[in-house]
């Protein structure tokens, strides 16, 4: 592996620098998407008529190809990192809204009634009861959003070397050095898997009442069989 981590100098970054840049370009949009998706999801839960049209819009937005999105944005934000980040933020938003709505809706009615009876106001009820119960569903959405975001940053290469680790791919072709492409693919995949694992860890830490198995991790909360148990436990927590 002679020189495997030697990065051509035209990329203006070391290997670690590229990784940092890649993570910045991939994770900031996901974070932005989450911050917008939380209130939006709450609105969709509160006003039921709002959800179908929002779902329609999200499906359409997700159908817009990333490369097409990037190049149309060049006219407004130039060939820059922000041009790559805006579409990624939108894609994350689109993935997260349904996850949040499904998660919050999976909270049983009696749990909400109990919280109200204990004198929880709407805000406290949302933060202490609904959100914690929705965490597994939200994290499931976050995992998909993060992994696809990390993968899509590479496409930024096409709009003037804005693709962080993806820029290695262009250089692999210019300099006829396949090792650079291998490096890019392997590093990106490892980053994605590490971030995915980190999110699973976050879920385990945030939901101590859940069974430790992988069983309920990837389930969208469509099946109610696994739900009442954590909800009941969460209730006990709340009672304390």
């Amino acid at each position, binding site marked *: 592996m002679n020189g495997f981590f030697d990065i051509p100098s035209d990329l203006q970054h070391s290997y670690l620098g590229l990784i940092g840049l890649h993570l910045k370009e991939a994770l900031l949009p996901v974070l932005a998407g989450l911050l917008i998706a939380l209130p939006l999801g709450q609105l969709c839960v509160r006003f039921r008529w709002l959800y179908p049209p929002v779902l329609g819009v999200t499906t*359409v937005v997700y159908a817009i*190809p990333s490369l*097409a999105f990037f190049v149309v944005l060049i*006219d407004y934000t130039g060939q820059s990192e922000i041009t790559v980040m805006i579409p990624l933020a939108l894609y994350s938003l689109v993935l997260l809204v349904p996850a949040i709505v499904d998660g919050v809706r999976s909270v049983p009615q009696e749990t909400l009634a109990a919280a109200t009876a204990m004198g929880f106001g709407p805000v406290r009820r949302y933060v202490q009861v609904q959100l914690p119960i929705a965490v597994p569903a939200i994290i499931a959405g976050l995992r998909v959003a993060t992994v696809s975001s990390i993968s899509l940053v590479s496409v930024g290469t096409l709009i003037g070397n804005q693709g962080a680790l993806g820029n290695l791919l262009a250089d692999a072709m210019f300099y006829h050095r396949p090792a650079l492409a291998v490096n890019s693919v392997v590093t990106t995949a490892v980053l994605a898997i590490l971030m995915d694992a980190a999110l699973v860890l976050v879920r385990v830490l945030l939901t101590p009442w859940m069974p430790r198995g992988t069983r309920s991790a990837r389930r969208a909360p469509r099946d109610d069989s696994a739900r009442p148990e954590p909800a009941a436990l969460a209730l006990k927590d709340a009672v304390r």
Partner: protein
Amino acid sequence: MNVLHFINAFFSDSAHWHGYDGIPRRLLEHIQYSLMALGIAAAIGLPVGLLTGHTGRGGNALAFLATAARALPSFGLLVLMFVLLGLGLLPVMIPLVVLAVPPILVTTYEAMRSVDPSPVDAARGLGMHEAKILFQVEVPVALPLILSGLRSAAIQIVSTATIAAYVSLGGLGRYIVDGLYQRNYEKVVGGATLVAVMALVTLGLFWTVNRVAVSPGVRRSG
């Protein structure tokens, strides 16, 4: 609206409508790549998803496989395959299929698992054999979800087939890649518009298939 002006300029230029680099030809190439990739991915994902979903075994292995496949960057894979295998359809098909199999596989599995077990038990009680149960009871009920998996795979393929142009193949991505290199922004926006429209048409197609193929009883309860 600057972008609208570019779109208008691109589509009103008659030079873009015929010849080797004409819209019809590029569109056909794009459709060809997309259908081929979707066909291969469905041929892999559907049977495996149906069987594992029917027996209820291997869900964890599937989820693990899907996560691993999702972690592979399609664009990176495309360039890597091109560098290793040279020019041809194969380096384009590999990343597209890797991209499309996980959503088909996982959604099909989940769809089969979400079928209400009581009609399946009833069918078994009536003496139907397993294959008949699978295709006459489970699949019709699971069809909306299975189709949604195929839909998201198809849209991702249509979007991603664009980058085939980067490794010197055809398709609608040609306009975007060439336009960027030629500093011809009109061409870039035109190509982007065409791909976006094609993705939306794919959405519409799946919506139509959904209306036609899903039985009305299932749609009512859904």
